[in-house]
């Protein structure tokens, strides 16, 4: 123990700066992993409807595509079950002068709320309860009034009470008032089932299923959350994998730190061995050092991750809302389990990265104690063998990319990514030697003695150099890969938007613009638009979220004749014109690419989709490219939908002007429409606004990704600083010597900065190569398999070039401290010591 203190702790203190850098690297790696986990949990953990606040814990929910018929309540109530059945409406609604919120329609009397004073029976139709969150936003208090606006009716309610402790905004009103307001007579969003004590849930579920139509879903609320969670799984997995990259970069650095301390203390180890320490003891000593760094780093990382999670939660929930489903972010909660996992991960990574150098330490012979001159880091590298292995790893990566997903996840794609990183690590030594060999003459010419020594010493300490280059290259490759993937995706989406958004003006009912929410608009709106001068075609669209084989998707119906004439939809195969012309009047549908991929749907196949109380068989006429969301769409002609669900409200309208109309006319028509439709709560947006909005959503979605890459780059840069410092410490005497030979301090500084620049250059080149390869995996394997999108390859060259230069500048910056440290070394002291 005393030996441990003397030989491990003392040098640990001596190399404080380096140990700190390593610690920060681990801490950052762990922090990112933790942050992504916590923020992901918080973003997905809040699907439970706030309705439970009003009604209590629900046992079953009865739902149906296109809404539930109210009459089933009575049928269900007649069942010989100890259960209560409550109608519920959950819809977006506009608050006059206060944005929008969710309205819950509930049976106040049945819930007994008129007795607790939350509602007063005599003013049932005009009483409301507000969530504390909404009340705070509106600065409303008990007794105030709130005016809600439905598709064509406005109603004022008195705030009877405020539900405390709510972190989402909603307003609860009586079910009848809600139906009135929202024009949903006879319709419900769902029936909530509460079982009495002693009632068997299985039996009750079966009994309920017998009463309602076969197309209705009877599920536990947990199942709905589970569905949402499943939907988010691919998204979370991709973030998770990305977050582990930082940890991987951290692992390379631990390896480096321990390897350096083994080299540095070779003589000490020799002495220890000579006085009787077993090689096992030496092994344990170094593993102990690594584990200590791991534990400390993890603890720091947990704290940091908790803070980071709060910061990125907003970004993640934005994405979740925009792309997947409506959910309010929950609180970030650090559970004991997460803490344990984080510490185990951080320590485990540290431990395993230290294994190789620690074993090298254990092999030091006692005779080393006598060696006067400690050898340079032995480059036990077998470049030839490594290259062969690298080729094998690369081939494995290529082969793995040929297979499909496992359990809906691109598992083999992830493994291929890892193989590519391994291949890079193996290629790295040969790459470093090759590039520096090629640069030999240039370096001497450009940077003189500093350049000459810088290049040479990187090759001399090849084992170390290649580790640092690999770590940096991995981080850079992630940046490049994601950069190319996102850039390509963005370009693809932009091209798609171009062909998709061909109408001049778009209208939707006012309300929250989240995925899966399609607020209805008044039935009179299309007629008013058609009568407006200057308007050509009016595509009327009905969209709603529906269940299909346990997942959610959007069902949409538009006027396919207008779509065919006005838009240019692109199909995977087949003629767009023919496909679209085949839809009207038929039970035929087109589906989006993600939907087809998810459910293995092919053209010509028959889809059985429950609509209301019926199950409709739709023939798939074609599969079209779509990037709106990954849940997918099923589209039919409007006539087809209305045959099965005649009351389905209009949700979106696309207005095409008369051919030949210019921007001025468009603006005129838009203003005209605004006046004519003033009484309806609508969003009226010209084409550009919608297009810009779509790209903004896209950019926000990838903000987290960029943040993650940023951290990986920071970790890698710290690693570069760390490694350069180690190089300086190892070469203290060499640096002293060249001072004797007439080097000025500035030249020593330049030498280290040149080394930093070379490291950055090597890592940049290698990272670019690896990154390009990885981007192909991301685009054609990972993304395709997790989300089902076809992305065209469009590397954003300018942006990438800029980012690479920036990282390079960072690396040189990382050399500043080591360079100053080297310049300050006292030559007379360092040359004569040892």
């Amino acid at each position, binding site marked *: 123990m005393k030996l441990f203190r003397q030989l491990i702790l003392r040098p640990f203190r001596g190399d404080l700066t380096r140990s700190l850098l390593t610690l920060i690297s681990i801490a950052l790696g762990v922090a990112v992993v933790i942050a992504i986990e916590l923020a992901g949990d918080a973003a997905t953990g809040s699907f439970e409807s706030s309705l439970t606040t009003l009604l209590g814990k629900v046992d079953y929910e009865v739902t149906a595509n296109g809404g539930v018929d109210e009459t089933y309540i009575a049928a269900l109530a007649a069942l010989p079950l100890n259960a209560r059945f409550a109608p519920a409406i959950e819809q977006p609604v506009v608050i006059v002068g206060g944005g929008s919120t969710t309205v819950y329609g509930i049976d106040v009397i049945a819930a007994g709320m008129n007795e607790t004073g939350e509602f007063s029976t005599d003013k049932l139709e005009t009483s409301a309860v507000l969530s504390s969150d909404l009340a705070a936003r509106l600065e409303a208090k008990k007794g105030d009034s709130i005016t809600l606006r439905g598709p064509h009716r406005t109603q004022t309610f008195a705030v009877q009470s405020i539900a405390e402790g709510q972190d989402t905004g909603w307003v609860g009103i009586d079910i009848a008032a809600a139906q009135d307001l929202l024009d949903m007579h006879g319709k419900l969003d769902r029936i909530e089932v509460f079982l009495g004590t002693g009632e068997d849930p299985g039996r009750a579920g079966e009994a309920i299923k017998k009463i309602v139509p076969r197309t209705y879903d009877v599920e536990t609320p947990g199942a709905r959350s589970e569905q949402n969670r499943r939907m988010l799984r691919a998204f979370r997995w991709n973030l998770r994998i990305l977050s582990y990259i930082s940890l991987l970069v951290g692992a390379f650095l631990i390896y480096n730190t321990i390897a350096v301390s083994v080299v540095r203390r070779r003589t000490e180890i020799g002495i220890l061995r000579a006085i009787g320490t077993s090689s096992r003891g030496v092994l344990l000593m170094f593993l102990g050092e690594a584990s200590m760094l791991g534990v400390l780093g993890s603890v720091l990382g947990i704290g940091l991750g908790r803070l980071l999670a709060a910061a990125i939660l907003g970004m993640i929930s934005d994405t979740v809302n925009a792309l997947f489903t409506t959910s309010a972010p929950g609180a970030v909660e650090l559970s004991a389990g997460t803490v344990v996992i984080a510490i185990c991960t951080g320590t485990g990574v540290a431990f395993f990265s230290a294994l190789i150098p620690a074993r090298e330490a254990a092999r030091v012979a006692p005779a080393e104690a006598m060696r006067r001159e400690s050898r340079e880091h032995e480059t036990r590298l077998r470049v030839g063998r490594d290259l062969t292995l690298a080729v094998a790893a690369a081939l494995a990566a290529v082969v793995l990319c040929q297979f499909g997903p496992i359990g809906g996840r691109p598992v083999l794609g992830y493994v291929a990514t890892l193989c590519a990183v391994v291949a890079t690590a193996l290629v790295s030594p040969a790459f470093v030697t090759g590039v520096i060999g090629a640069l030999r003459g240039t370096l001497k010419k450009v940077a003189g003695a500093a350049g000459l020594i810088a290049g040479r010493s990187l090759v001399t300490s090849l084992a170390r150099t290649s580790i640092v280059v690999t770590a940096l290259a991995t981080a850079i490759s992630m940046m490049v890969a994601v950069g190319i993937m996102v850039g390509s995706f963005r370009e693809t989406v932009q091209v798609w938007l171009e062909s998709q958004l061909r109408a001049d003006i778009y209208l939707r009912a006012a309300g929250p613009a989240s995925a899966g929410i399609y607020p209805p608009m008044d039935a009179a709106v299309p007629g008013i638009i058609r009568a407006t001068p200057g308007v050509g075609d009016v595509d009327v669209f009905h969209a709603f979220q529906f269940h299909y084989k346990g997942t959610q998707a959007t069902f949409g119906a538009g006027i396919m004749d207008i779509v065919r004439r006005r838009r240019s939809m692109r199909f995977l195969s087949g003629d767009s014109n023919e496909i679209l012309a085949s839809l009207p009047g038929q039970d035929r549908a087109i589906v989006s690419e993600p939907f087809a991929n998810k459910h293995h749907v092919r053209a010509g196949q028959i889809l059985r989709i429950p609509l209301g109380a019926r199950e409709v068989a739709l023939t798939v006429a074609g599969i079209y490219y779509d990037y709106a969301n990954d849940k997918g769409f099923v589209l039919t002609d409007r006539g087809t939908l209305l045959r099965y669900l005649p009351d389905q409200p209009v949700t979106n309208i696309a207005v095409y002007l008369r051919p030949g109309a210019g921007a001025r006319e468009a603006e005129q028509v838009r203003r005209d429409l605004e006046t004519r439709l003033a009484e309806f709560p609508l969003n009226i947006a010209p084409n550009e606004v919608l297009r810009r909005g779509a790209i903004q959503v896209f950019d926000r979605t990838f903000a987290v990704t960029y943040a993650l890459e940023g951290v990986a780059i920071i970790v890698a840069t710290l690693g570069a600083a760390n490694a350069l410092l180690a190089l300086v410490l190892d070469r203290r005497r060499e640096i002293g*010597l060249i001072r004797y030979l007439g080097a000025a301090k500035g030249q020593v500084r330049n030498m280290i900065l040149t080394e930093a620049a070379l490291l950055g250059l090597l890592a940049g080149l290698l990272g670019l190569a690896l990154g390009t390869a990885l981007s192909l995996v991301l685009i054609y394997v990972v993304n395709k398999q997790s989300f089902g999108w076809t992305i065209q390859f469009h590397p954003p060259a300018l942006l990438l070039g800029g980012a690479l230069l920036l990282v390079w500048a960072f690396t040189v910056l990382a050399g500043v401290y080591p360079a100053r440290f080297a310049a300050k070394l006292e030559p007379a002291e360092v040359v004569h010591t040892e």
Partner: protein
Amino acid sequence: MFPQQNPQEKPIRVAVRRAVKTYEGGVEALRGVTLDFAAGTVTALVGRSGCGKTTLLNLCGAMDFPTSGEVLVAGRRTSELGDRELTALRREEIGFVFQFFQLLPSLTALENVELPLLLSGARKSEAIARERLRWVELEGKAEALPFQLSGGQMQRVAIARALVHDPKILVADEPTGNLDTASGDAVLKLIRRAADEFGAAVVMATHSAEAAAIADIRVRMRDGQIESVER
């Protein structure tokens, strides 16, 4: 303490006057040393380990400065020079040879010799370095890396490097300390020739009698002071 004698009237290259050196820990490594080193003369510093030889060499090489007293190198008081001037002084006037760790392990023999010239930005550096390497009879090893050379060869490369810029002063700290007799003799011959052919003032710390034998002046030190001077 000892009267200045300079019978051949050779120019004085380094003058040490009443130099005292106290290290930070309080160790008095030099306690009032006065000594001159003339061009073309080999001076050997002998004495027990720890008597202050290396310390004195560092003062002569302008790598360290006296706590009191003064050291004049090429006529300039070292403690008054700034970093830039010291670097220039080392580049132009001084060559160093050490006992251990002579060469940069990552550079070839030729590059090691060329290094001082590269550092000072001299022209035709490679040709000059090659010529010096020939002078120590190692032109055949120009492309060899240090680990491919024997100890004696390394030391000869080091001497070539120390003389590549025609320094007026050659500082050698136990140049044969690590060598067998034969290699040591070859190195000593070169050091002797450095004084005779280049006219350098050679200051050499040594423990070996052979090394002391080639010197013109033998200075015996003890506890940071000069015990005797023998010509």
